[in-house]
C-alpha cells in the first residue's frame, strides 16, 4: 500500500515537474528546477493559499521547443480519468532532528520542510502545513543522503530508470546503508526503493579516457593537441573572415576528435581509472597543459604526488583502504597508503570516498562493500582526514565531483529532500540508518523492514531477546563425557 502511494506520489511529482522522467537531464530541465526552487521562497509560509495548479503551469510557460521532450506531461494530461486532475503539493516535514547539513554548521532540534521533493525551509520556527507528512525524529541525527561512487548493481546504468529493479533487495539494502545517490561511471542516479520516477539525475558529464598504456597516453595527447590546434585555427579563420579576408582558409574538418573537443571546450569532464604514480603525473600534466577537467578513480599512489595533483586541479575518487602492497623492486614510495585521502585533501585535491567493493554483496564478507560507506570514511579518518572532511567526501564533496551538487549532497534550501536519519554519529560503528528519505519519500524505515529491524531495535520490544531458531522446544540428552561414549568399540 505504501509503495502504491509512493508510486502515485511519484507520478504526481513527475507530472508536476514534467520533464525529468525523460532520461537525459538537459540544461533546460535544470532551469525549470531552479525556477520551482526559487518560487516557494516568499509565499510558502502560507502554502495552503497557493494555487494548487501552480507547478503545472510553470513547465508550460517554458518555450514551446520543450514540448517534444515533455511527454510525461502530455501522458498525464491524457489520462484525466485515472489521475485526479488537480495535482496537490506534497509536503514532508522532518521534525526535531539534530541536523548536520554538511554545507554549514549543525542545527539541533530544527525542522526541515520539503515540498514536492525539494527542501523549502530549514529552521526552528517552520510552519508545517496541515496536510504535510510528518516524521518526528527528535534525538536522531539527520545527514544528507550518501553518494555511492562507482556503484554497480544498485541501480542500472543504461539508462537507470529502465534497467533498475526498484523492488530489489539490493536497492533496499542500499537505502538501508544510507545511499540515496549512485554514480555508475556513465550516470548519476537516485537509489530510491519502489519509485522509478525519482531515479534519473545526470548522465551527460563524463567522457571516459584511458591512460593505462604508453600507446593510449600518446594517442590521447595527440588528439588533444589536434583538437587544440583545430580550435585555434578555427578562431583565426573566423576572425579573419570577420575582418573581411577572403583568402582565409577554413581548417579541415576534424575526424575522430569529438571527445577531445568536448574535453578542451570543458563541455565534459575526463573520467579515468588510474592508480600508478606515472599515470597520475601524466594526468596532472595533461590537466595543466590543456586545461581539461579530470576526475581520477583510484589514485592509490596519489599520496606520493599529491602536490602535483593539487596544483593541476585534479579531482579524485579514492578508496582509503585499498591494501595493495608496495613494489619492493622500486626504491621509492609505491602502493596504497591509508593516509592517501588525508594527504590528497591537505594538498587541495577535491576528494570523494568510496568503498573497495563496488555494489552490495549478500555473500557475508562484511565491511568491504557499499553497505558500509561510512566505515570506509572512518578509515580515511584513521589516515588523518578530519571527520568533517570525511563526511563531506561521501556527501557534498562527491556531489561536487559528479556535478550534481545543485541537487544533492547537502541539506540546503532548494536541494532535493534526500536525507538519512541515524541513531548516532555517522562514522560510529554502532550507528545504523533508521530512515532514508529520497525526494521527500520515506523509502526505508528500519522498523518496518525485517532486514535490520532486530539489530539494536529502535523501540524497546516485548519480544524476548533471544531469537527462537528451534521450531519446538529443544530436548535432547545431555552431552556425554568427552570421548567416554565409544572408546574401544
Amino acid at each position, binding site marked *: 500500500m505504501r509503495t502504491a502511494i509512493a508510486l502515485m506520489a511519484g507520478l504526481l511529482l513527475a507530472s508536476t515537474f514534467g520533464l525529468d522522467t525523460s532520461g537525459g537531464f538537459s540544461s533546460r530541465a535544470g532551469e525549470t528546477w531552479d525556477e520551482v526552487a526559487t518560487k516557494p521562497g516568499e509565499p510558502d509560509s502560507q502554502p495552503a493559499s497557493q494555487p494548487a495548479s501552480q507547478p503545472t503551469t510553470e513547465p508550460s510557460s517554458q518555450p514551446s521547443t520543450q514540448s517534444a521532450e515533455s511527454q510525461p506531461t502530455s501522458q498525464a494530461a491524457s489520462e484525466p480519468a485515472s489521475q485526479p486532475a488537480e495535482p496537490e503539493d506534497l509536503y514532508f516535514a522532518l521534525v526535531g532532528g539534530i541536523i548536520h547539513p554538511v554545507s554549514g554548521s549543525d542545527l539541533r532540534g530544527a525542522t526541515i520542510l520539503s515540498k514536492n521533493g525539494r527542501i523549502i525551509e530549514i529552521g526552528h520556527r517552520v510552519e508545517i502545513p496541515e496536510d504535510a507528512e510528518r516524521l518526528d525524529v527528535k534525538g536522531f541525527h539527520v545527514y544528507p543522503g550518501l553518494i555511492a561512487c562507482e556503484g554497480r548493481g544498485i541501480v542500472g546504468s543504461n539508462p537507470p530508470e529502465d534497467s533498475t529493479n526498484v523492488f530489489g533487495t539490493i536497492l533496499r539494502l542500499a537505502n538501508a546503508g544510507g545511499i540515496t545517490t549512485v554514480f555508475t561511471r556513465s550516470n548519476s542516479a537516485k537509489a530510491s526503493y519502489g519509485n522509478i520516477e525519482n531515479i534519473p539525475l545526470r548522465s551527460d558529464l563524463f567522457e571516459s579516457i584511458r591512460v593505462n598504456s604508453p600507446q593510449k597516453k600518446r594517442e590521447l595527447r595527440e588528439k588533444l593537441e589536434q583538437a587544440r590546434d583545430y580550435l585555434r585555427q578555427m578562431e583565426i579563420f573566423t576572425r579573419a573572415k570577420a575582418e573581411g579576408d577572403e583568402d582565409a582558409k577554413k581548417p579541415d574538418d576534424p575526424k575522430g576528435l569529438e571527445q577531445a573537443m568536448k574535453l578542451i571546450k570543458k563541455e565534459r569532464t575526463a573520467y579515468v581509472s588510474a592508480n600508478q604514480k606515472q599515470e597520475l603525473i601524466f594526468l596532472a600534466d595533461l590537466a595543466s597543459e590543456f586545461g581539461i577537467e579530470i576526475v581520477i578513480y583510484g589514485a592509490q599512489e596519489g599520496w606520493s604526488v599529491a602536490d602535483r595533483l593539487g596544483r593541476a586541479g585534479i579531482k579524485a575518487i579514492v578508496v582509503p*583502504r585499498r*591494501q595493495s*602492497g608496495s613494489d*619492493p623492486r622500486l626504491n621509492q614510495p609505491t602502493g*596504497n*597508503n*591509508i*593516509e592517501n585521502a588525508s594527504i590528497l585533501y591537505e594538498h587541495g585535491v577535491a576528494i570523494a570516498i568510496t568503498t573497495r567493493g563496488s555494489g552490495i554483496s*549478500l*555473500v*557475508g*564478507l*562484511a*565491511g568491504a562493500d557499499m553497505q*558500509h560507506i561510512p*566505515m570506509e570514511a*572512518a*578509515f580515511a*579518518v*584513521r*589516515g588523518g582526514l578530519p*571527520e568533517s572532511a570525511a563526511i563531506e567526501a561521501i556527501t557534498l564533496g562527491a556531489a561536487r565531483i559528479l556535478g550534481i551538487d545543485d541537487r544533492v549532497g547537502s541539506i540546503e534550501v532548494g536541494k532535493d529532500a534526500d536525507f538519512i536519519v541515524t541513531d548516532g554519529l555517522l*562514522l*560510529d*560503528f*554502532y550507528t*545504523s540508518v533508521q530512515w532514508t528519505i529520497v525526494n521527500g519519500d520515506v523509502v526505508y524505515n528500519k522498523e518496518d523492514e*525485517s*532486514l*535490520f*529491524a*532486530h*539489530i*539494536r531495535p529502535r523501540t524497546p520490544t516485548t519480544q524476548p*531477546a*533471544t*531469537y527462537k*531458531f*528451534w521450531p519446538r522446544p*529443544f530436548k535432547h540428552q*545431555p*552431552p*556425554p*563425557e*568427552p*570421548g*567416554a*561414549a*565409544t*572408546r*574401544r*568399540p
Partner: protein
Amino acid sequence: MNRLFATLIVFAICFVGNFAKANDVPAHRFAIEAGKILTMDDADTIINNGILLVSDGKIEAIGKQGDIAIPDGYEVVDHRTGWLVPGLVDCHNHIAGSLSDLNDGVYLTNPGLRTLDTVEPRNENLENALSGGVTTVLLIPGSGNNMSGFGTITKTFGNDVDAMVMRSPGSLKIAQAGNPERYWYRVGRRFMNWNLRQTLTKAQKYHDDWADYEKGATPDDPGYDIVWNDLRGLFDGQFPVSVHTQIYQVYMSTITMLRDHFGLDVVTDHSTFDSYKLAPLIKERNMYAIVGPRQFHFDRYDRTINGCAARFAEQGVTRLGINTDAPVIAQEDLAYQATMACWYGWNDHYAAIKGLTRIPAESLGVIDRVGSLEAGKDADFGLWTGSPVDPRSVCNMTMVDGHVAYDKQVKRRTR
C-alpha cells in the same frame, strides 16, 4: 697480511651481528605509560592512567601510574592519550608462511603435514599484520583437504622461525564440507564424515594401545607407526583441532562427531552461515566458537540479516572470538572484523575486543603466554589511539616479545 686478517674479523663480526636472532639481541627495557590499559585478564581489569614495565621480552609489572616507579635504564614511552591493548590473536591464518603450499593435495587425508615447514619470517603480509596490532597467529594448512595437517602457533615478528614459533603442532586442521568438495572429484559430506571417523578411530586406537603399554597395563609393544604417532597429542589434549566448519548440519556433525564422540578439544573456525542456530549446543559444552571471515548471514526464509557473532552472543555463548582466514580478509583487518560483528548486532564492545585477544588465545591453549596483559606474560601489545574495534583508531606501535616490531613513525604502513 695481518691487516687483511683484522678486516676479515671485522667483517665476520658484522656478519654475525646482522644475522643474530631477534630474541638473542637483548631487548630494551620499556616503561609504557598509557591512558587506558585493557588487561583482558580473568577479572576483566581495566586500568586508567596505567603503566606497564617490559624487561627481557616479558611484562615485568603492570599497574597504576604512580603506584609503580620507573626504574633506571627504562625507556619511557609516552602514550598517555591512547589505549594499550594486548596483541591481537588470530586462530585462522594462512599468510605467516609462503602462500603457495597451502593445500598439498596428494591425499584427501594428510595427517602429518606441518605448516612449520612453510613459516616465512618477515614476509610482506606479516609486516602488514603488525601494523594492525596482530602479534600471534595460528598458521594452518588450507581447507582443500579433509584433514590437511598440523598448524603452527607463531608470533608475527622475529628474524627466524625459532624466534617466532610458539608451538608446533599448534592444532590439527580438519575441513568438513565446503572446499574439499570443490578440490576433489566426487567427494561429498557423507564420505568426508566417514573418512574422518575411520581415520580418527584408528588414531585413537593407536593412542589407547600406547597409553596402556606405557602405563604397563599390557606387555605387548603396539608397534610404531609414524602416521598415527603424530596424532597422539590430539587425544592427550596437547593441541586442539581447528575445524573448518559452517552451515547447520556440518556444524552439527562437528559437535556430535569430533567433540562428543571422539572427545577432541574442538575450535570451530568460521562458524558462519546458519551455524548460530546451534548456539545452545555450543553453550552447553562450553566450546569455543570463532566467527569469520563471513560476519553476517542473509536468511532468505525470514528475510533477515543476521550477524553471526551477534546471534551466538544473544544465545549466551561467551567463548566467542573473531578470525580473518587471512588472506581472505587481510590480516591487518582482524580488528575490523570485530567492528563488523558489532555493527551487525554484537552489542558488547568489550566482548568484541576480548574475542580478538583473550578468547582465541584460550582456545589455542596459549593463554599462559599471550592474549592478556599480566606480569610474567610475553610483552605483546599494541599502542592504539582508541579502541581497536573503532576503524578510526590507529595502531601507533606494536611490540612483540618486548621488541618494537612496528612503529608508525618509522614505517608509515598504517593500512
